[in-house]
Structure formats: C-alpha cells, structure tokens
C-alpha cells in the first residue's frame, strides 16, 4: 500500500498560518467540550423539570410535558439543528432576528447548537427522570404525604433524591450521547472536533492520521466521562439499598 504515514503532520504550521495542525485539534476539542457541557446543563435542568411534570397529578401539566417529550424525540437531531439555526432567526421578531444574524458567526453557531442539543437531550433526560420516579414504590409518595409534607415537599425530600440516584446510570449514557451528538453540529459550520477532522483531511495530505486522531479524541472523552460517572455513582450509592426491582 503506497501510503506515507506521517504523524508529524500535527506539528507542522497550519495552512492558515497561525499555530500548528495540533492546535486545530485542540481548538475543536475545546469547542466540543464547551458545547457539550453547556448543553448538558440545559438538558439536566429542563429534563428534570419536564420529567417531574410528567408525573404530577394534573392532566394539563403532564400533558404539556408529554407533548414536549414527543416533539423533541420524534424529529431527527439534524433537522432540529437546522430549524434552530436557519429557521428560528427568520421567525423571530425582525429586530431580534437581525441582531442574531449580524452577530459573530461562531456565536450564532454555538448558540443554536447549544440550545438544540440541550433541548433534544432534555426530552431524553425527562423520560429517564419520569421512569425513575415511577419505579419508586407507590407507598413512598403516600409516606411523604402522610407525614405532613406537601406535594412539592414530598417530591423534594422523598421522591427526587431517590429517583436521581436510580437515574444516574441511564443519565450517564445520555451524558455520553451529548458528546457524540455534538458532532452533528459540524454540519452548520461549527468548528468542533469532527469539523476540524474534515478540515485536516482537506488541508493535509494525511487523511488517516487526521481521522484516527479525531476518533481517538472521542474515545478519550468517552472513557473519561465513564470513569467520572462511576465515581458519581459510587458517591450517591445508598447503603443497603439494592437497585432496581
């Protein structure tokens, strides 16, 4: 096979003149991490809220929450991203839309990606939170109420602390997914890892090295997150409690 492996390509100055190709990778890596973490924050907060609403004894609220989940689950991520990036600015009030379109392209891409990933993932988090709450014995809610807690207090002190512990393992896989899904954002021009990988293929003559490096970077993220979440799991473990049914 007539391919010249050359791992030193990453040390060469980049085509744009500033820094090396390795710096491109680092830039993409940072963008992927920053995007995923901010989106994860949105997903956790919104997901917890929507997941709780799905279980409350109020038809209207639980119905709204169910509709929210269905919408974000049944439209492909890529389509949602295009809706956030290309469609939403057009539908905003003219001034706001123009302000968005005139802002720094990176800001536009990052904001759209963050909201898109955050809301997309929040629907999945909501489902996990709901099933966590529903998997608790029914008597727990009664016990909380019987002791004099109001419904919000019962959620806060009894149901949610336990549900969140049960939900840590499935949330880990959602957390991993958000990093992987962030690669979709390369399609709107956001220069995260996958996009940098494509650029490297275009600018260097070393497609294999470029893709291997980017792929490994994703594997590293994946392993790191898994190790971190194992720690979280161990920390929140309830003594004497055997998970699941």
């Amino acid at each position, binding site marked *: 096979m007539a391919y010249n492996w050359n791992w030193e390509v990453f040390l060469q100055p980049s085509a744009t003149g500033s820094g090396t190709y390795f710096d491109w990778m680092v830039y993409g890596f940072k963008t992927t991490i920053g995007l995923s973490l901010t989106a994860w924050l949105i997903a956790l907060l919104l997901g917890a809220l929507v997941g709780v609403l799905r279980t409350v004894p109020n038809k209207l609220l639980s119905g709204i929450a169910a509709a929210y989940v269905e919408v974000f689950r049944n439209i492909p991520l890529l389509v949602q991203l295009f809706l956030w990036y290309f469609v939403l600015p057009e539908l905003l009030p003219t001034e706001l839309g123009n302000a968005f379109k005139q802002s720094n392209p990176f800001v536009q891409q990052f904001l759209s990606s963050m909201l898109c990933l955050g809301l997309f993932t929040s629907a999945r988090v909501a489902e996990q939170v709901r099933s966590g709450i529903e998997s608790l*014995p029914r*008597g*727990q809610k*009664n*016990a*909380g*109420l*019987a*002791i*004099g*807690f*109001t419904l919000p*207090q019962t959620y806060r*002190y*009894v149901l949610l*602390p*336990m549900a969140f*512990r049960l939900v840590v393992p499935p949330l880990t896989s959602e957390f991993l997914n958000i990093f992987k899904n962030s690669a979709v954002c390369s399609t709107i021009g956001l220069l995260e890892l996958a996009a940098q990988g494509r650029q490297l293929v275009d600018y260097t003559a070393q497609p294999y090295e470029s893709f291997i490096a980017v792929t490994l970077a994703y594997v590293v993220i994946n392993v790191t997150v898994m190790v971190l979440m194992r720690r979280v799991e161990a920390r929140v473990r*309830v*003594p*004497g*409690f*055997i998970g699941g049914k």
Partner: protein
Amino acid sequence: MISINNVNKHYGAFQVLTDCTTHVNKGEVVVVCGPSGSGKSTLIKCVNGLEPFQSGGITVNGVAVGDPKTNLSKLRSHVGMVFQNFELFPHMSIAKNLSIAQTKVLGRDLAEAEVKGLQLLDRVGLKAHAHKFPGQLSGGQQQRVAIARALAMDPICMLFDEPTSALDPEMINEVLDVMTELAQEGMTMMCVTHEMGFAKRVAHRVVFMDHGRIVEDDSKEAFFDSPRSERAHQFLAKILQH
C-alpha cells in the same frame, strides 16, 4: 376523634367502599379486619386523605378531610401513619428519617428534632442503629423505626395499615409489642390487621369489612364470642384455625 359517615368511593364503575360509617373515640383502639380486597386499606387511607372519596364525610378531631379548603398536609402532620411496606426513606439515615419531617413540616430546629428522634428510637429499642440506613435493617426493625417516625410528630392518633403483613413471622411480635405498649398508654389507634391475637388483647372494638361494606362494628367481646354475620363467622373460622 375519627368519625366516618356514609363514605362511598368508586373507581369508575367499580365500587370500593359502600356507605361506610364508624367512629374511633379518643383513647380507643379499633381493629379493622376482613378478607383481602374488602376495602379496609382503602378506608384507612381515606382517613388522612391519601385516597379521595366521592360522597359522605370523614372528620378527624373536628376537621373535615374531604373539604377542599382543609389543609391536608397540616392535618396529616398530626395523624401518624404506619404502612405495610414500612416506607422509610431509603436514601436517609435512620436519624434523618426521624428528624426530616419534624424540621421541614413542624419547623422544629434540628437539634431538638434529633434529640426527640433518638428518644423515640430508644423507646423502640433501636438507638444503636441511628446512623444506619433503612436497607441495613431487618423488616421488623424498619417497621419499629417507622412507628417511631410517626410518633416523633406528636400525633393525636395513629393509623396502622397492615403493619405486620410484610414481615417474616419471627419479626411480627417485636412490632406488635410496640403497638401494644402504645395502646396501653392511651394512644387513639385505628389498625388494619389480621393479627387477631393482638385484637383480642388490645382492641376495644373490631370493625369487620367485606366487599367494601362495614359488616360488623362491635366491642371485641361481642365480635369474637358471637359474630352476627355468616361472613364474619367464616372469616374467623379460617383465621383462627392456625
């Protein structure tokens, strides 16, 4: 203290409770028994509003449970309840289980609540376990903690919903002993249970339910010596055989 008048409850077309009427006076111990599916657990859950009912009325200490204006949380905070499956909060230590509602519902300060919790834990013989978690205790121990948790709220009466039916036989007595002691101290108690020995020793009155109706409501002597209904006869015959 507890007054239940003509209570009816149904899920859709299925009638769970039909015209239930009974009373528990202050200091009285009333045992509610009956075959499974007779509605006794549902009835006791109506008393503190955990189950809604469609018609009739229940008052506890003069407060109407079914009234939408009633502050149910406040009412429940001084009606103790003990569940079949203990329902301790698994993510909290025993000490925390005993103090959480005292601080968050009654507004007691933490130190006071912890002292009170420990006293009650001592009373049910489990002081040494305060730092453990519910999953590390046996069923009988968990149920004793659950009783202590309810007592920590200084309840005016106690509801027991089959407190021993999820327990292994050798653990039943340790729970019944605590309940007997409570009764002897004059606590007002409504107990759904199959433990007829406990009823004979401790109860003042026995309420017998079948198919969502209160079939008998009598002094324990009258109930055990000469039950009036055929169904109560059969029930007693089956249960006392062992």
